[in-house]
């Protein structure tokens, strides 16, 4: 008998189940997965965009708002200048192929490497409740771009802001069916309080997160 | 509304009986002042908690069944102790699960059992208290009373009605004092250190006294204050303060 067999047998015997699972048990499993009930949550009666912005700030991100995606390159240029950062970034293809002419920012369409300082991504969705961006891995959405650089800029179309994680799952099931290899919820710059309990912004992930909300 | 007085059985507790009888008499005075008829079953000894918390189920059961017998005829069982009232109200059902024939009785007793201040406020609706106290006190929330019985606002409500008295809250009144029954004896060093934090908190209020509702906490805090050389801060049971400290 394998370890797997032994472990499952012990569990079944503990709950008084026969070796072959009862129809009712399997129906219960399928039922819960198909219905995926939403657990009790706080009332959350907010306007989503203002709430999202406020929570991003609370999680130590900076936030900017522009009228549309066309205005994103200028907003990025503004941010990099204000922060004294190099005018150079790697970006997801969708972002790299916006019109960057005249902004002074050099944007490369490739995944981030260890020495890239600024990474610009879009998002799959964003969560108003907690100021969180939701990123999916994929051919055109490399995970390293939001992870390795010191500065991560996330471009969030306002229409992709949903209330909370549960809404994000419902939307993702609708749009994609299955999950990609990695789903990353990112809420601000990395941090740690492991030394004397003192909060330090900037651990292993980016230590600066800038969110640009594109209203249309 | 009937004029009939509430028949309250006073469960005085083993520690009050042994160490501070005055608290028992204060409790009687308060209950009578609230319009109750007070009965003190004379054969009472202990609620069984020391044995229960030590894992000696059989001993605890024997003692608990005696309590049920003794308080059968009372409308209520009231105790100047969140710990003993909590034992009866929150734990007797589990303790006596092996005696299903007594289940109804146990549940009835549990439902009628109250810590003193919560009884005075929530059941007897007491609004005037006999005692007076000139000065500032701070209140320590005993863990069982707080977390098992929800005793929090009631003692403060009553203390607020004591002429001359002002309550100053300490930083963390709900923080355990470190008594924990046999814990205080078995792990005395850790227990005293926890008590020390409580004493620091009490001292930081500048209050003349700390008031509380359980003898275990009382002896523990008083004992630690004395060992720290604090001869000024008094330690009182809430019943004593409410009834008046000249009671004897």
């Amino acid at each position, binding site marked *: 008998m394998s370890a797997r067999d032994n*472990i499952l047998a012990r*569990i079944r015997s503990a*709950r008084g189940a026969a070796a072959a*699972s009862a129809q009712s048990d399997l129906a219960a499993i399928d039922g*819960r*997965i198909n219905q*995926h*009930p*939403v657990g*009790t*949550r*706080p*009332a959350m009666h907010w306007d989503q965009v203002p709430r999202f912005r406020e929570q991003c700030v609370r*999680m130590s991100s900076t936030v900017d708002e522009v009228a549309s995606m066309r205005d994103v390159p200028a907003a990025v240029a503004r941010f990099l200048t204000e922060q004294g950062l190099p005018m150079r970034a790697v970006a997801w293809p969708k972002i790299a192929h916006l019109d960057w002419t005249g902004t002074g920012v050099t944007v490369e369409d490739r995944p981030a490497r260890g020495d890239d300082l600024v990474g610009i991504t879009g998002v799959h969705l964003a969560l108003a409740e*907690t100021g969180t961006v939701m990123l999916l891995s994929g051919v055109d959405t*490399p995970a*390293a771009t939001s*992870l390795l650089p010191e500065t991560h800029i996330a471009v969030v179309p306002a229409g992709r802001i949903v209330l909370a994680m549960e809404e994000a*799952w419902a939307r993702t099931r609708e749009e994609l069916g299955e*999950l990609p*290899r*990695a*789903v*990353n919820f990112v809420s601000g710059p*990395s941090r740690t*309080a*492991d*030394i*004397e309990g*003192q909060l330090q912004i*900037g*651990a*292993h*992930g980016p230590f600066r997160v800038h969110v640009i909300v594109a209203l249309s | 509304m009937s004029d009939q007085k509430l028949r309250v059985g006073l469960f005085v507790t083993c520690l009050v*009986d042994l*160490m*501070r*009888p005055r608290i*028992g008499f204060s409790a009687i005075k308060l209950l009578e002042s609230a319009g109750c008829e007070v009965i003190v079953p*004379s054969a009472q*000894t202990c609620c069984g908690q020391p044995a229960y918390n030590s*894992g000696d189920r059989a001993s605890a059961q024997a*003692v608990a069944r*005696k309590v049920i017998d003794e308080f059968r005829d009372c409308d209520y069982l009231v105790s100047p102790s969140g710990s003993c009232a909590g034992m009866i109200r929150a734990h007797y059902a589990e303790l006596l699960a092996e005696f299903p024939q007594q289940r109804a009785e146990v549940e009835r007793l549990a439902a009628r059992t109250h810590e003193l201040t919560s009884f005075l406020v929530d059941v007897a609706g007491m609004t005037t208290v006999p005692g007076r106290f000139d000065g500032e006190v701070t209140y320590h929330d005993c863990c069982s009373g707080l*977390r*098992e019985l929800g005793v929090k606002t009631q003692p403060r409500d009553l203390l607020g009605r004591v002429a001359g008295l002002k309550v100053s809250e300490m930083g963390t009144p709900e923080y355990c004092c470190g008594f*924990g029954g046999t*814990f*205080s004896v*078995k792990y*005395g*060093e*850790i227990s*005293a*250190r*926890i*008590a020390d*934090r409580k004493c620091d908190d009490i001292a930081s209020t500048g209050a003349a006294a700390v008031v509380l509702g359980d003898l275990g906490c009382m002896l523990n805090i008083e*004992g630690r204050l004395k*060992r720290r050389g604090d001869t000024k801060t008094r330690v009182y049971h809430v019943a004593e303060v409410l009834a008046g400290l000249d009671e004897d």
Partner: protein
Amino acid sequence: MNAPVPGFKARAHDKLNDAKIQRAMKNFNLAAARTRGVADLENLEDIRTAAASIRDHSLARLDLWLERFEQEATRRGTQVHWAETHDDINRIVIEIARRTAVKKIIKSKSMVSEESHLNAALEAEGFQVVETDLGEYIVQLAGETPSHIIAPAIHKNRDDVADLFVKHHGTPRKTDIGELTMEARKFLREHFLSGEMGISGGNFLIAETGSLFLVTNEGNGRMTTTLPRIHVAITGVEKVVPTLEDVSCIMRLLARSATGQSISNYVTLNTGPKRPGDTDGPEEMHVIIVDAGRTKLLGTDMQEALRCIRCGACMNHCPVYQNIGGHAYGWVYPGPIGSVLTPNYIGLENALDLPNAATLCNQCGVVCPVKIPLPELMRKLREKQVDRGLRPWQERLGLTLWAWAAQRPVIYGWLTGITARAGRFFGGADRTIRRLPGNGWTEGRDMPAPAGKTFRELYAKRKQP
């Protein structure tokens, strides 16, 4: 290999008298963080009930949920392994490491791997292992074990960390915490980029999608599960959660209970290895599902302990933990959950002190996000100790005599009358007893003297005309 953990009292004594540990514990206040963190949940108690219920759903059909997880994970390319014992865990990881010819292994926190001493086993086989959670990294450099499940190095101060970095990095000494953190980032970045296998724990396993659910604030979880070519996740059987919505509900309480945040910085779901066309991700993903004593709790009065989501709130609020710190507990999990799990996992007789070294104040139970009745479980463990004859005979005798006397009011009255008078006498003029031989009360405090007569005798006298 489970070693017994006697010596609790001696360890506690050392920690209580260690000025540095005491300073560290006084500064440690994640309890206040939780209080701030839950202030925005107007229905906190309802959410706790929901989270507890979700955990109970898993445990009620644990085999089926695990099988569903395995089915979904396997379908997405994850290799699922089952480990019955701690040795199995180490064996499986070593086999994978050998087969994939890795040399450097980076780790993001796994408490289960602490149970099996995985790092030592890997190092004995010649693999290099680097912890990447900053607290775990510090503890690893110091050759110690974590003292808290969320903040492993709270027992170390900045000077300790500075010394460790000088010794192991060969860099000039820094004492600013920000600078130390940046130095760790720089050094660990090298490891992240060169690690060939990443070992992680797993906060949860999601049955619906066959995903590993991982939560960090530092980003090392993402690094460890994205950059190396092999990813191995290790977690306990009890960690399976049915659906994505279920884990979202629990997540609200996990972050608030642990650190007071509404969400942890990085919440990651890993479902299988790299896909065709993916530019990141491991070539192989493995999940090791561990029993090691957990299934023994199912169907027993200890089952509720398996709800635990490893938030650390119980220990953060525990007056005992706050004063003695985590190492005194002697095994992987400290605080109230440690006092319950340790005897269950390594043997009741090997951890006699832990369930007894508690005041049963229930500060832990009140804050536990999944409503584990921790003091009740500790009390039950005390009962089991009595049933198995593991208590000292003096204690058994004392309790038996107490109960005997308590059932005999006349004898009881006589004994208490004597005690009250003797106590009053020994208390002297200042009504204080300074030494009570044979018990720990007077180690750290005095005993106020009894009034001198018992209530029962005084009341009886008053009732007589």
